[in-house]
Each structure stands twice: as C-alpha cells, then as structure tokens.
C-alpha cells in the first residue's frame, strides 16, 4: 500500500532552532545529542530570537553552525568570561556557553570558577568526555586514573598527573550558583533527565535566578578506541563511579 504522508502524524522532528548543517562530530559521540537537547530547549522556551550561544575551542568549535541564533566563537577556555561580557552588556539576552572539559576545567579554570562565583546569570553546558577530542586524544583534567591517552600512553599515573578533577563539585562549594548538576546520556532515561536539567538551567536564566551549570558525561568512541555501544557502557559502569550523577546544588 502506498504511504499517504499527508495523513501521518509527525512525532519527532528537528528542533526549529537547529539549522540543517551537518554535524562534524564522529559517530557515537554525544555532542550531537547535547546539541539537539539545547535546540529543543530553546524551542520550548521560545527564546531563539534572544539567545546568544558561545562556541568554544574543541570538537564543538563549530557549534555556531548548528543553532539558528546569534553566536560568538571564542578563545580556548574563555567562554565563561565572554558570556559574562555579553550578559552584562545585554541582560535581556539569554547567553549560554558550551565547553569541553579541557576548555572549562583546565585552560579556562579561572574564568569558569569566577563567572560561577560572581553568580553570572548565564547557562553553562560543560561536556565532560575525559579527553581532548579535537587535538587527537590527549589527557584531559578529567581523564580517569590509568586511562590511556596519547599523552598518557601507559595510563594516567596519579603520581605525576594527579587525579581526575571534579570541577562541578568545586563549583558547588561556592555560594552564588543556583543550579549545578551532573547528567549523562547513556540510555533514554538519562537523556530525559538531562533534557530536564538543561531546560531548568535555561529557565533559571530566563527567570533571572543566576548561574546554572549542567555537566554532561559524554563519550568519545574515536579516542577512547571503543564502539559507540562500548562507550555508553563505559560511561554507565565506570565513569559514573568517578563522576556521580545528580544535582549538586539546587537553589532554584
């Protein structure tokens, strides 16, 4: 029987605030899922026309291509400071930064921490894939103990490289942030939770409540040398042991 498209109900579509541009991400990487969640959130809150996104340096350097909203591409690690500048200049805009773990928790340590400490009314999406994806799989501040990377070929040795940094927990010690949470995407339940968290983090800003941070445990099948399925299992079984999921601060 021929399919009558006109009589079919659409149950799933690309968020209006995402463009048609194709992702530059590797298969199985969660950056694409996160991008979609943000797009959906922007749609649901109806804020596309007053949102400014910040693209960092890292695999998501092209983030400005995916959203139908204004965007600013910035220097490595400085996204939270740039977000501060935009938001203070135009408090009516909704400003979100999108940052990898190297960007947010290594080179941008000072900018990330102090934007949080000032309680800037911004939304930070912190994508923790425990590796430097863009530059070929070097150690990140979040790399697990004994995890092999191109700069820890024998595995991360805490004696010389220290331990994976739980940056969200550090931010959670501050008085200003209104919402700090760690989420994951390894199954549909987590994707739903993460979607709620992202929405809340944007809603907080729209409501003028202050600084919200959503850390998302992400995968890097390419540099982890795993299949997408193995990578998901690795997050569920191993990564969450070091980076426990859940809300760290909720003063909303």
């Amino acid at each position, binding site marked *: 029987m021929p399919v009558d498209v006109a009589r079919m109900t659409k149950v799933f579509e690309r968020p209006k605030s995402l463009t048609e541009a194709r992702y530059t991400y590797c298969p199985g990487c969660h950056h694409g899922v996160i991008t979609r969640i943000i797009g959906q959130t922007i749609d649901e809150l109806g804020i596309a026309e007053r949102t400014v996104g910040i*693209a960092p340096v890292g695999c998501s350097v092209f983030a400005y291509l995916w959203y139908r909203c204004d965007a600013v*591409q910035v*220097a490595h690690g400085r996204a939270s400071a740039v977000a*501060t500048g935009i938001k203070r200049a135009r408090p009516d805009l909704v400003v979100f930064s999108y940052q990898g773990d190297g960007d947010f928790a290594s080179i941008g340590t000072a*900018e990330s921490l102090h934007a949080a400490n000032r309680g800037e009314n911004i939304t930070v999406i912190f994508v923790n894939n425990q590796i430097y994806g863009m530059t070929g799989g070097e150690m990140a501040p979040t790399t697990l103990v004994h995890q092999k990377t191109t700069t820890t070929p024998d595995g991360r040795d805490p004696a010389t490289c220290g331990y994976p940094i739980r940056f969200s927990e550090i931010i959670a010690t501050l008085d200003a942030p209104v919402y700090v949470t760690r989420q994951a995407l390894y199954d549909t339940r987590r994707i739903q939770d993460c979607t709620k968290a992202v929405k809340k983090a944007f809603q907080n800003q729209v409501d003028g409540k202050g600084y919200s941070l959503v850390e998302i445990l992400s995968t890097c099948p390419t540099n982890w040398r795993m299949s997408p399925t193995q990578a998901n299992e690795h997050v569920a079984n191993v990564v969450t042991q070091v980076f426990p999921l859940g809300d760290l601060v909720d003063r909303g």
Partner: protein
Amino acid sequence: MALRQLLRGNEAIAEAAIRAGCMCYFAYPITPQAELLEHMARNMPRLGRTFIQAESEVAAISMVYGAASAGVRTMTSSSSPGISLKQEGISYLAGSNLPSVIVNVVRGGPGLGNIAPSQCDYFQATKGGGHGDYHMIVLGPSTVPEAAQLTTLAFDLADLYRTPVMILADGLLGQMLEPVELPEPIDPASLPRKEWAATGAAGRDPNIILSFDLGPDNLKRMNEALQAKYREIRKREIRYEESDVADADLVIAAYGSTARIAKSALQMARAEGLKVGLFRPITLWPFPYDALRAVADHVDTVLTVEMSAGQMWEDVRLAVAERAKTPFYGEMGGVVPTPRSILNEVRKDAR
C-alpha cells in the same frame, strides 16, 4: 558648557571613556593605572553601567570581547605585565573585527620590571604582540587633555573600523595632574546601531562573531579583508604634530610624555640659537612615515628620544631612509629623560 577639571591622566582617560558612552569596563588592578580602575569602580555602577574587577587580565579582555560582540562600547585598561596577558584577547578582537579600547599605562620592564614610567611596550603595541597578521590603531597622548581627547577618538575609530584601539600612555602621564576640559557626555543610545552584533536574531539571520575558518582560502580572504581595512586606516587616520620644523637643522622625534619633555629641551636649544624642531607621532600605528620622511628631506638630523632601548627608533629609521642622520637617545628602567639630558644630546648632534 564644557567642564574644566584638574585630573590625573588615568582619571581623564576614565572620565572621557564614560563620556564617550563606554557601557562596560573590565580590568584587573595594577600600578600605575589603579586610578583608572578606581574611577570606573566609583562611577560606572552609579550610571547603571558595568564595572567588573576581573579575576585576571585574560578574563578582563575576554569580557571585553563579549561586550563588544553584544554591540556596546567597552574598554579595559592595564599596565605592561597585564597587557602581556591581554595579547590573546587582542588578537581575537582584531580577528573578529570587534570595536574595543585598551589602555596601556606603560611601566618599566621586562618581567615584573617596576612601576616607573616607560615606553618599552612600543613594539608590542605597534607590531602585533599577539599572534596573527593584525594591527591595532595605537594612539600616543603626550598631555592629560590630549589623553582625554584621544580616548574619545579611540572609541570613534574603534566603531568606525571595527577594530581594537590602544591608548599607549605611560606612568608619568597616568599620574600627572593637569587641567582638562572634558567633552560633553554622549547618550550611548544615540550611537549608530551595530547591525553585525550578537544581539539576538529577531527578524534577521543569525549574526556570528568569529575569527576562525578551517579553509585556507576562506581564512586568506578574511586576512585580505583585514589588510584592506588597515590600508584604509593608513590612508585616513595618520596623525602627528610638528613644532618648529620649518627652519630646523635637527628634529627630535618623540612621542607621549617624552615628546612633552622634548618640547622643553627644544625651547632651551632655541634660546641657545640651535635650530631644533620636534616631530611627534600621535598615531604610533599607523606611523606617519611619509610626513617624517618629508621632514627628513630638509634637516641634517632626526634625533629619536624614547624611554626605551630604541623601539620607535626603528620606525624613524624606516621613515628617514638615510635622508638624514638618525642618532638615538633613550632611557630605560623607569628613568625619565630630563630637558637638560635631551639638550645635551641635541648639542652633540647639532654640532
């Protein structure tokens, strides 16, 4: 009626920035520009504008990048070691065509150096400093009133050319008190809208601010556009001052505070019957090569005087191109040349 006040250079720059419609100011404390930061801390919030004492100069310049992206007039200030930290941000501002004003109240270097006046950051300011093929417009005030005037100009040029502009002052100018006639404050809302800014894509396609393109051909085009802009700036914005050059045998080339001291030396030299003039670049980039060359055509000597080991001296020699002798007299480490020490050099060279 324009108001006449007794102000330090640092305060005059701060107040002129406010009157030019600077909406967001971000900086980290450092001597000898602290009064600038403090003036902004007292006055910006009172006017409903943004003042942030940033966690570092890196953060401050990144905040400038954000505010400039959002289309408002914005400024940061610092002194030499802090300006070194801002180089990353300045390169990004230039690459992303973002109007912004950066004040460097130069102190002795390298390293921590000291807090005394110096002109040792000329190379960094005029030749790049950060990475990439870029320039900033660099303005070198030599008096407190001029510091205020050039601050107004800096904001106008930044907007006109969508470029970072640096005010290259020094510790002497920053601390010096002089009567200043400040311009009337402008209403920031009266400034032309920046159609390119990231202000929310309502009823238009998204605006994207970036300095990036992976494709060499595209990045080459972006670079060519920058160079075309720099050619325009070179054509239209060169500024300098000449004093007593018409009949001069020797012309002193100096900028900033040093030029002001050199003026006293010039008067002393003239009193002794020596035919001395002064050539003072006001735009250090673009440098007034042609104007100085025209001067060099009818003098014997162009004596460069700087508070450095001879940085502007390189531009002077490029301009003079062997048409005259080009001796140099410089002081370093925060030592300020006196009218008498310059006069001694003039006497040597005028012989």
